[in-house]
Each structure stands twice: as structure tokens, then as C-alpha cells.
């Protein structure tokens, strides 16, 4: 039950920033074929390269969807450089629950898509700790 505390269920049931934004500056989607989770991220930036709008679409387990919803909220207003510094620990802190090694991939799918979408990065510091 620890993994399904109210905040996570709230984000899962009422996912924030859901629905893709128009004319996105970042547009990236990826599957986790093992679980069937799917996330599509769109982000629009202003002239100062600051995030003005985030739009997610996708489906998956409560952990992957809540993590995307929480990360999306945290992204709004950040600069591209600040986006780059989102880490695994930030996600785990937002979720605020112990994540078993098996579910780490669910929790980090949104971060992986942000990193890949914004920077074409296939890995980031800390990922290998998985």
C-alpha cells in the first residue's frame, strides 16, 4: 500500500498536463515494451528558452503515469538547462515512496523520455545505478 499513497493515486487518476501541446519545441515518445507502458512528451518553450507548456499522453501503470504527471508539473517554468539537471533522485523524491528495483523502470520512464527528447541523451548520470 505504501506504493499507492494518495498523492500517487491522485496524480494517476487526474494526470496533470495531459494532452499534447501544439507546435512543440520538444516532441518525443517511447515505449517500455516489457510492461506496455507508453509515454509521449511535448514541450513548448518561450523566447527565453523557458518551459511554458508541457503536454503528456500515454498509458501505463500508476507509477509510470504518476511520475510523468509530477515531472510535468515540475518542468513548467524551468529553463532548458534546468531541465537537464532533473535526476533520478528528483523523481524518487517527488514520488516519495520506496520503489522496488523492478518498478524503477516504470518510475523513470518519464525522465528517460525528457532526457532523450530534450537532448537526444540515451543515458544520464545515475542511470547505471538501476
Amino acid at each position, binding site marked *: 500500500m505504501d506504493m499507492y499513497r494518495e498523492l500517487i493515486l491522485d496524480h494517476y487518476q487526474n494526470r496533470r498536463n495531459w494532452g499534447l501541446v501544439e507546435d512543440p519545441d520538444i516532441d518525443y515518445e517511447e515505449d517500455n515494451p*516489457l510492461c506496455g507502458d507508453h509515454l509521449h512528451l511535448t514541450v513548448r518553450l518561450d523566447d527565453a528558452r523557458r518551459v511554458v507548456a508541457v503536454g503528456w499522453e500515454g498509458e501505463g501503470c500508476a507509477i509510470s503515469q504518476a511520475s510523468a504527471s509530477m515531472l510535468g508539473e515540475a518542468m513548467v517554468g524551468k529553463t532548458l538547462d534546468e531541465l537537464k539537471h532533473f535526476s533520478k533522485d528528483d523523481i524518487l523524491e517527488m514520488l516519495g515512496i520506496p520503489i522496488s528495483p523492478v*518498478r524503477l523502470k516504470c518510475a523513470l520512464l518519464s525522465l528517460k523520455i525528457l532526457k532523450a527528447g530534450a537532448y537526444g541523451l540515451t543515458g544520464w548520470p545515475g542511470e547505471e545505478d538501476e
Partner: protein
Amino acid sequence: MTSVETLLNVEAIRQDFPVLHQEVKPGVPLVYLDNAASSQKPTQVIEAVSEFYRKHYANVHRGIHKLSEESTEAYEGARAKTATFINAASRREIVFTRNATESVNLVAQAWGRANLMPGDVIVLTEMEHHANIVPWQLIAKERGAEVRYVPVTDDGLLDLSGLDTLLSGPVKMVAATHMSNVLGTVNALEGLVQAAHDVGALVFVDGAQSVSHKPVDVQALDADFLAFSGHKMCGPSGIGVLYGKRELLEAMPPFLAGGDMIKRVTLEGAEWNDVPWKFEAGTPAIAQAVGLGAAVDYLTRVGMDRIYAYEQVLLGYALERLEEVPGGAGAWARPVQEGRGGGLHAGGMHPHDIAELLNDRGVAVRAGHHCAMPLHQRFNLVATTRASFYLYNTREEVDRLIEALYYAKSVFAF
């Protein structure tokens, strides 16, 4: 319930499986329903492996000393027991591998390289585990062969209505599962085997799920090859079986090369050992084979016909109880024909979430695609939650599963 209790003395059986008697956390006893992934081991198997290491272990087939002779006798004895278990005509038809997956690869590679020509056809089914798809896809690509698939009906059965078309042309191999690891469907393969043989094709049966749960007679089935794993039938992991008709095994070139699979080696080449040893390169999984022999003894003593009958009753009860769970039977249980497993899938809840919440209540199930992505695509699903039973599961454990599902639904009540 009286009739069920006369089928199997489940309480006595449970005493043989030490791992079942534990709590996943204080006050929450384990309910192990992930048997299609792997089974638990009885004391008889655990002790047989320990005793073998304590008293008899050495390498097989080579040493002229007491331990090597005892070890060889135990290893070859396990082969003989395994042959009897599936009614093979000879122990020489039993090849020890690492697992059912390796058994498929062995035939796909060794038989395929020698026998498949460009344009030849391999027929599989949409119901297969990846282990009975990918090895055939690989060899088909290498040899320029074509792969066709028997479709699956909405009820989860093989659709054999188009079999004549599927079996037309140079069909050389038909590979099909005996029991689906997702649907639980038991395929009555006799018709398929006959039809395949009529067009001159061989038949490879994936018995990974069937051999552990029902009596299997390879001669009655007339299968040319049958693959299964020790770990799903109360035996150790790391030991698997390939049954093959002797003349077919003899005609096949080796799979892996090395020690024990040769008679004579010169700098120019080698002469292969007799079957089955031709296919057992290197030091085999000796203690694991001995453990498999003990598992065969155990299952034989309980009786495979009784195990199957008991599991049918248990499955019937589980499907009946699943109907009660809010959301409707359609949302929770896909009815299965004669099978023992049910793929649960519930609208609005992801299988990973269901499995995690069931685990909270001590109930171990499997969530995911169960290495059968094409089958899930067939039913427009990405993943399912699977509860699968074995001889040591009880009606009370089914009740625990149902209670846990109610709990999961309550967490996600929205």
C-alpha cells in the same frame, strides 16, 4: 470438496514444500500462484541434490573411480526415469539440455541447418511462447525459409479451419505448444500431428507447461520432438529435456561441440558420439539432472492424472469466484478451455499495479506479456496478470487471491 480431497492429499503435499510456509511480511502468509513461471521444490528433491553432492559427486562418463561411476549411474538413471515419465521408447531419446528454450534452439539449429532449404516452410502458432518462435525465425532467416502461423480464435483456441492452406507447399516442421502459458489452453495436438505427418512435416511440441501438469505420452502423441524444463516440474533450474525420436536424433548433426559429444578427434576432424550424448557437449548439469530424477519420482508417486484432475477442480473454483469480483467476469477472467491458468486483466488497472497490490496481500502472481507478445497483440492487450496453480495450491489460496483482488480494486476505486 470431499471428492477433491480424495484426488490429492494437498495438506500432506504442502508439508513437502518448505518454501510455502513463510510470511511475506508479519501476519501475511505467502500464496504462491506463479507456477507457470517456475514451480517450488519438495524436500525430496532438495535432499536428493544435497545427498548427491555430499556423497556421490564427480564428473560423469570419464573417471575410472568410484565417485565417477556413482555419478554416472545417477545421471543416467535420471535419464531413464525421465524417459519412463513421458513414455519414450528408449532412454537414448532423452537429451539433457539447460531448459526447454535450449531444446528448441538445439532442434532449430541442428536439424534446421541440415534440412531446411530456401522456400521451405515452418508452421508455428500465434499462441507460442517467444522461445518457440524466435529460434525458428532465426533459422528461417538463415536458410531462406518461410514462417506461417496458425491463428488463435476469440475463445483462445487454435483455429485449425485453414490448416490445409497452412500445410500446403514444402512444409518441413510444425512447432506448437501443448499448453499455453498465457491462456492455459490445452491443445489436443493429435489432429495437427496427423495432418503434419500426412504432408511429410515433423512435429515439435513445446511441453514446457504440459509435462508438469498432465500425463504426457510421446508415443501416443506421436510427437517427433518434445521440449520441457525441470524447474517447472518441481525439479532444479538449469536442467531441461529434449525428447526426439531416435532415428531423427541420429540423423541430426551436433548442436554444440566439445568434450563428451565425440568418439574420436583428430587434427582433421571428429567422429560424433552416439545419441543422446552427441548433443551433450561439455560437463552437463549433473546434480540438476539427479534432482530432476527425484522430481519425476515425486510427481509419479503423487500421480500425474490425479494432479491434473485436482488442478481442473481448483481452476473451476477460481473461475467461479472470479466472476463475483466487481467489474464483471469479462473484465477479470478470460475463460480457458481445459487449462489450468487464467489470464486476468481488469479495465482501468495496469497488470503491474494489480500484481504489486496482490503482493501486498502475500499473493505472488506474474504481470507482463509472459514472453508471448504476439498472443497479447492478438487480443489487443499489452500485458496481463496471470495466476497459475500447481498441486500444492488450495481453495483457501484461491479465496486469498479473490480477497486480494477486492483489495486492489478498493485502492483504485475511482
